[in-house]
């Protein structure tokens, strides 16, 4: 099941962020989105997650086209954004219990997900007393809770210490090793062997708004 995006074009406000963007990703592959602020990394991830509409171009995951079958597409995707989606009044365990119910994940996985991000000892603490890094980890615990083939990670290691960042990188490596796919916007090295890099800024239109498609920049997942 390959992830294929073709000829994506994105405008934010009246500015074209990128146009003619192509990418492909094979099972077990990883794609690191690098590039300067405002290059469109988060926007690209939100498009691939189905949160932003695809206006031009096409996104497919295996045989499932995002535009025609959003529900089927979204069922294969897990997205973690800048915001941790936490409610201060809930404990860590309650937060994951709700997400398990919402995403149809078995509740037996909750404790494993907490342990995967070293949150076991905080399970019954309300989110409001957690530190920024602990909140971040709880926001990422969904990755260990819900099984989805495609992970879309937006700056997953922000405010994490080196050890926790290492844990997240290890989770991403394990996910790829198990045949999953990871697209991550990150400035640290997740250490995934053969991970491709993509800078959405290289697809930014220059002076010419009708910039041709950059076929030479097409990423081929088969190589890794």
């Amino acid at each position: 099941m390959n992830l294929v995006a073709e000829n994506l074009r994105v405008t934010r406000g009246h500015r074209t962020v990128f146009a003619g963007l192509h990418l492909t990703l094979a099972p077990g592959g990883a794609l690191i989105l690098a590039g300067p602020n405002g290059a469109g990394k988060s926007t690209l991830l939100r498009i691939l997650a189905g949160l932003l509409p695809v206006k031009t171009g096409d996104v497919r995951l295996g045989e499932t086209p995002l535009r025609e079958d959003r529900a089927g597409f979204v069922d294969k995707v897990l997205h973690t954004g800048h915001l941790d989606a936490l409610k201060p009044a809930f404990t860590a365990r309650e937060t994951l219990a709700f997400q398990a119910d919402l995403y149809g994940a078995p509740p037996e996985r909750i404790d494993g997900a907490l342990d995967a991000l070293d949150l076991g000892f905080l399970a019954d603490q309300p989110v409001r007393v957690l530190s920024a890094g602990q909140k971040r980890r709880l926001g990422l615990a969904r990755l260990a809770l819900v099984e989805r083939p495609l992970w879309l990670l937006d700056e997953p290691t922000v405010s994490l210490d080196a050890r926790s960042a290492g844990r997240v990188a290890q989770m991403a490596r394990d996910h790829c090793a198990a045949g999953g796919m990871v697209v991550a916007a990150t400035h640290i090295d997740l250490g995934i062997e053969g991970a491709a890099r993509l800078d959405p800024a290289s697809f930014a239109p220059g002076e010419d708004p009708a910039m041709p498609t950059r076929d030479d920049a097409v990423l081929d997942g088969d190589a890794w």
Partner: protein
Amino acid sequence: MKAFLALIRRDLAIAFRTGGGGALGVAFFVIAATLVPFGVGPLPELLSRIAPGMLWIAALLACLLTLDRLFQADVEDGSMDVLALSPVPLEMVVLAKCIAHWLTTGLPLLLAAPVMALTLRMPEVSYPAMIASLALGTPALSLIGAIGAALTAGMRRGGVLTAVLVLPLYVPTLILGALAVNASAMDLPAAPYLMLSGAITLAALPLAPFVAAACLRLAIR
């Protein structure tokens, strides 16, 4: 279904842990209705004449009080992304949140209304009609209000705008609710007004979640 119930439980838990559940809305309702005798004077005939309308206006305002945070909090902390990417359709998410909103706003008003009716010297014969009109009308307030709340969900200070957008849409419910109570006070049948009020709720039940979900899709862009 499990996810739907989990959504309702979650919103109820948030309401009870952070906003005192329905207590705040009821307190507002009680204070707003108590202000009336101070403003218009304590004449029983006057109070019992305007009581139905005042009760209903107080109910509308109490409902608005919690409405602007219905989606805004979730959009701000990223929860809406998690909800939008879940297998639950966004329309059902909206419906679940409306149900939770009604349980923490509309239902407590129903329970507090008799006390306020007593304060405002409403004739005893109108109590059943008043309870019935609130029971049939307040779900529409949550559902129609969800549209306004969804429209302003992406704004920092959308509260007043929500009120401006939503209050005109509450007019039919207000008229029919107050008419039902007035009719019963004059020994006329309240049923036609109650049925029309219920019809608004029934029409809003399938329509409002679709409109609100469409607005939310814009808010999370």
